[in-house]
């Protein structure tokens, strides 16, 4: 167990190093640079600026400095926001993205398990057909359309109620989070519902269920303790990749609902070729995702004793 976790962590570190390297060299080959501005800058000033940000050194030296700093958890300072550390930017804005993401994952997982169990329970009857239709819709409609329609819905809801139940955009209170999180979780919820349904149906004919029925357990108890618990397992497995999907999907939701999260910040940094912010954000997100996948795999080992972590 300990060895397994250690091996996974070492693999994770190598992966993060790979991501950092790929980002570094991709970034330094992008046309244009962060010191370009509208103002004409004399060669002397430019040289000074480059020296300040360390851009005058050879590329490989920059790369090693960057790696050494990153190993100490220092992503440097932003180019476009004077004297602001990338660490501060990530700390401030990721908190918002994470809150949104966690809420969205919670919606998606709870909804997916609930709807999936319902469809399996009412197989080929009306609730099943209706939910599966909605699921197909949820998988086929792009997230930004949900975001737009969600906002439109909020506007109409507020107009109908005569007061602001959910704000149309912005961030701050719980009521700001609910609609964006729902919108963000919708695609994943549809996916999880489908997964849950097929997993429930697969288990429906399992021997241990027949045994439980044969020994006269009440149907309710069989459903809860035996079928549902076992059917949740595949859902747990895909939670790792789902977290990745939701954090990146957050970009759009943050743009549409004017939420000051890290995704919106990243898009902005790319447009301004703010090297340090882009590299910092990418490496941070990469490390976060790698870590989440490892955590989910370890949790899976606890949830399902049949899976041996080796």
């Amino acid at each position, binding site marked *: 167990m300990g060895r397994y976790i250690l091996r996974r962590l070492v693999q994770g570190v*190598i*992966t993060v190093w*790979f*991501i950092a390297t*790929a*980002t570094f060299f*991709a*970034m330094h*080959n*992008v*046309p244009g640079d962060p010191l370009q501005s509208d103002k004409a800058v004399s060669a002397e000033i430019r040289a000074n600026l480059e020296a300040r940000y360390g851009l005058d050194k050879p590329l490989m030296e920059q790369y090693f400095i960057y790696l050494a700093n990153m190993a100490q958890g220092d992503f440097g300072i932003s180019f476009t926001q004077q004297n602001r550390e990338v660490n501060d930017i990530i700390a401030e804005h990721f908190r918002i993205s994470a809150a949104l993401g966690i809420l969205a994952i919670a919606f998606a997982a709870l909804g997916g398990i609930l709807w999936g169990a319902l469809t399996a329970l009412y197989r080929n009857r009306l609730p099943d057909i209706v939910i*599966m239709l909605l699921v*197909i*819709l949820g*998988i*086929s*409609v*792009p*997230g*930004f*359309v949900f975001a*737009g329609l969600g*906002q*439109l819905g909020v*506007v109409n809801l507020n107009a109908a109620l005569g007061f602001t139940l959910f704000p149309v955009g912005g961030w701050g209170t719980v009521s700001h989070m609910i609609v964006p999180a729902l919108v963000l979780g919708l695609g994943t919820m549809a996916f999880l519902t489908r997964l849950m*349904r*097929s997993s429930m*149906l*697969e288990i429906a004919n399992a021997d241990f269920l027949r045994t439980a029925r044969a020994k006269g357990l009440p149907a309710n108890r069989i459903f809860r303790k035996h079928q549902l618990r076992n059917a949740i397992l595949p859902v747990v497995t895909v939670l790792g990749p789902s977290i*990745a999907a939701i954090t*990146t999907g957050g*970009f*759009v939701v943050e*743009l*549409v609902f004017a939420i000051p999260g890290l995704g919106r910040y*990243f*898009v902005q940094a*790319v447009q301004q*070729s703010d090297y340090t912010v*882009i590299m910092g*954000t*990418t490496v941070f*997100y*990469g490390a976060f*995702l*790698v870590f989440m996948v490892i955590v989910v795999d370890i949790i899976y080992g606890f949830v399902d004793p049949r899976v041996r972590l080796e």
Partner: protein
Amino acid sequence: MSEADMTTGTGVPSFAPVPTSATEAQVISRPSLSYWQDAWRRLKANRRALISLWIVVGLLLFTVFGPFVWRVDPDDQDLDQISKPLGPASVATVATAFEPWAGVYNTLGPLPDTSVAADRLLAPAELVAVGEATTQAVRLSWQPNRTAPGASGWRVYRNLYHPAPDHALGLPVGEILNPAETGFEDRLDLEPRRYFYSVLALDAWGAESSDYITLSVDVKRVITADEAVAKGLADDALELAPGDSVELAFHPLGTDYLGRDMLARLMHGARVSLFIGIVASFVYVAFGILYGAAAGFAGGRVDQLLMRFADFVVALPFLLFMILFRILFGVESGDSGIAPMLVAMVLLSWPATARLVRGQILQIREEGYVGAARLLGARSAWLVMRHMIPNTMGVILVTLTFAVPSAIFTEAFLSFIGMGVAPPTPSWGSMCNEGLKTMLTTPHELIAPALFISITVLAFNLLGDGLRDALDARMRSTE
């Protein structure tokens, strides 16, 4: 039992051994089905998949041949019909050319009283439209309020909605600083729709009275005969008499916020979206096949190394790198941005297919027919290309059908956040992006492209489900 017991009256034996011949027993009574014939038979039985297949074919026809049928330039702006909702062609009434208006002057009205402050003033009375309200001009007239006289001027507002709930009067379109002039002519950007005009009184310092009067005016679309000829809607100005109606350029799905035809843009946008969706997925699936086949066939150390690299590529945050690569390769200005997006997508998406194919090849490598081919002296390349890859085709085809919608999604996402195709090239994603801005007033600009994306993705997904059921017994879903 004697022989007579077994015969009927006609003398034919009712029970007799069937003549057996060795060859006849071996004859197969029905033609044998190949793997693909069998798959096609199963796919045909799946109604959902079949309908999806027809939708996909229809979309391709729409994309390829649509622009030849609907020959409207997607970049052409029809400034008379900006953000027109979908529906039949708009009709304009022919009117005489615009003639200046003398205005309304109320010489008998009370004189301005500079001592009266705005809070004691009331709105004017009897607000009416003079003549017919047309897109040429809306003319209003009113009477000064007799109970609270002393206004020094008037201000006219225009709104698209009734101002009642929030006292939102809208756009100030006119200010009249002569209290005797009690008429106003609005010629500002009039469109054929309902407007709410509000008039209120001003005091000597220009402060507004809180009281206002509102009139709703339905504006009629008019066109002069000369304009109609200039726009190619009529051949001869002399044939048109005032009061005749002229049909404007037809936009069946409406126009966008710049007056561009939605149908034409959807067709051309489909070319971009489907092109990227299909070409990108083909290329990266092909690359994944070669990579996976190489890894699976080589095995051992090489396999380990190749797959470890694939794992790294999988770990890259997909959309972040899409954006990075999109900028990295998109150097030239004036570029439509399609090529860099394709390259980025191919570079990041191949590992999933590679993994799948590798797994298949590892299985197939142990099959008897591969051993037989090897025994007959087949070389490695021949073995892989002729025997192994064709046997993974079922899985690959399924992957491909699921790869297309995900590529379309990615394109739409990138175009939506403004990192995809560059304007004015339309794509479904960029159209959604533009439509989102006018979502509250003209939702059709968002809904039409969103609907197309959804239907396409849905069709490909259902087709993929059907193909999976038909081609691969092991992956068959339990639905």
